[in-house]
């Protein structure tokens, strides 16, 4: 679903091409901009019509907000931030991290519909190709839905690079970076690699990086192919945020730092010397 601009229709065609049984499309000028009350009304209408047993959302900002409210309206069950789904003797079992990632829980639903959010990038996208499903347009009268909140001010940073949640590569700095200037060095490397910039809570609390950059259980949950941790010790709440990263590389002076229990490659040296040299070498090799 989405505004009248055609982006939603394009997303619908893409979904139809990836093995869906049916695709419902809601297009309305009322959905031009994300507003929870209206999006919720639209998704509720579609779900009541399609009658699914399981409703999945990506666990991004929108899914995290809509899924609980939809589950309440549908009288269903709810499980959030799943990293695994399997069928087990007729019931669907979801795996999700708890206690800041220190433990995993397996949860099954006692009643339907089962609404769940799925951690972004944990699952590979369904392949495209094959028989395309029908795209069914659904009319939803959204004019009567009161938008009970409204955005009165918006400040978008003119920021290059991908968002943390969608990034395939992340360069992230922690307390060991030592100050805001150090993040300039990280930015150079991130720019070269097309990476998003991240930070540990220690760096955010110190005021060296904005809260929006924070990676960890209390910040962004990320799942990049490559996570480069610079001066990050590896507190458990930070590791919880990168548990789905495919490869972790760490640069930290302290060879005993817990980050090395999670990283597969490490350099126990001063990042101020290693990172500029690493950036230079990679630039040469990538011919950028």
């Amino acid at each position, binding site marked *: 679903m989405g505004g009248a601009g055609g982006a939603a229709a394009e997303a619908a065609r893409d979904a139809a091409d990836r093995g869906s049984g049916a695709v419902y499309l809601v297009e309305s000028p009322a959905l031009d901009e994300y507003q929870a009350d209206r999006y919720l009304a639209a998704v509720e209408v579609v779900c009541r019509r399609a009658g699914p047993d399981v409703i999945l959302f990506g666990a991004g*900002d929108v899914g995290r*907000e809509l899924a*609980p*409210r939809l*589950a*309440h309206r549908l009288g269903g069950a709810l499980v*959030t931030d799943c990293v695994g789904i399997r069928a*087990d003797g007729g019931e669907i079992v979801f795996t999700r991290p708890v*206690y*800041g990632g220190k*433990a*995993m*829980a*397996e949860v099954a*639903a*006692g009643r339907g519909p089962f609404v769940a959010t799925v951690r972004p990038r944990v699952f590979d996208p369904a392949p495209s190709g094959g028989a395309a499903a029908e795209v069914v347009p659904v009319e939803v009268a959204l004019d009567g839905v009161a938008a009970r*909140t409204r*955005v009165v*001010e*918006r*400040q978008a*940073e003119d*920021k*290059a690079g991908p*968002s943390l949640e969608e990034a*395939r590569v992340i360069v992230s700095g922690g307390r060991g970076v030592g100050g*805001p200037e150090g*993040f300039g060095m990280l930015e150079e490397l991130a*720019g070269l*690699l*097309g990476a998003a910039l991240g930070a540990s809570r220690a760096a955010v609390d*110190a*005021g*060296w990086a*904005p*809260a*929006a950059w*924070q990676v960890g259980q*209390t*910040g962004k949950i990320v799942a990049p*192919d*490559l996570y480069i941790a610079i001066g990050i010790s590896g*507190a*458990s709440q930070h*590791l919880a945020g990168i*548990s789905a990263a495919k*490869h*972790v*590389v*760490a640069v930290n002076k302290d*060879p005993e730092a*817990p980050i090395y229990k999670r990283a*597969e*490659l*490490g350099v126990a040296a001063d990042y101020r010397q290693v990172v500029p*040299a*690493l950036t230079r*070498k*990679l630039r040469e*090799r990538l011919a950028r």
Partner: protein
Amino acid sequence: MRIVVCVKQVLDPELPQRDFRLDPDGKEAAPGRASRVISTFDEIALEVALQLREKAGGGQVTALTLGGKPAEEALRKALAMTADAAVRVDDDGLGAPGEGLGRLDGFAVAAVLAAAIRRLGGADLVLCGRQAADTDAGQVGLLLAEELGVPTVASAVSGEPAGEAVRLKRETPGGYEVVEARLPALATVTNADVNVPRIPKVKDVMASFKKPLTVWTAADLGVDPAATAPRVALRRLFIPERETACEMVGGDSPEAQAEALAERILALKVLETRGWRHAGAGLRFRPGGGAGQAASGTDRRRPRPGGVPGR
């Protein structure tokens, strides 16, 4: 403005992995030596509420919890942070006793909290942490919003009174937005540099013991315990094995180490072929400025160094 902040008492989430154990039933974390604290984002929600009260030049902040007698410690902490009143709803007999972390689901908690808020005569604004530090689920606040049927703002970091409404600032990817919601409203709260929880002053700790702490049972609120049965079942709880053998890249000099590391990273075959450039030079982030900056003179837990030098 009458603000209710929902708080949950949890085992200290800062407990390191090496000290983390499950209880013998394997249904929840073993307390061990971990202390019990207010869940991280709930404490932040309290801070946002107290700042709002200051900006409004008055009002009442009530801390509300669902839990056993020990949860009153969390309420005392809230009162010491200068909340005006506190309410505990006793959880005895609710949910699925013996199921540990799976005992109460978000729906049950939200229904009980909604009943308590109605019993309080309603609230202009209800604040909840984004997610609890034990279940990490992020459900209760949004389910409570549906129970109460009020305008909802997710992941706010600060608020400003605006007459019959409240303006809440939210961080967005690479920026922020200010959302206005008519009162009564509910917001979930996340962390930012403007809402680091205050450390209670000694005199406020002393004063907290004289503040009202009310205890209600589910029966007092007309909540049927049978209606609090969880809709999901905890099938298994386990501690994942995830120790990676780390290859430490050596070398005689930082240059050599960097070269070896570059080769090993390239061998992972995960790097894209094109990079990006920032539109402008340097970082755009500047701490200490912008709308919604707290102007409270309260002591801060994590004092920060001065601003970022200009460039």
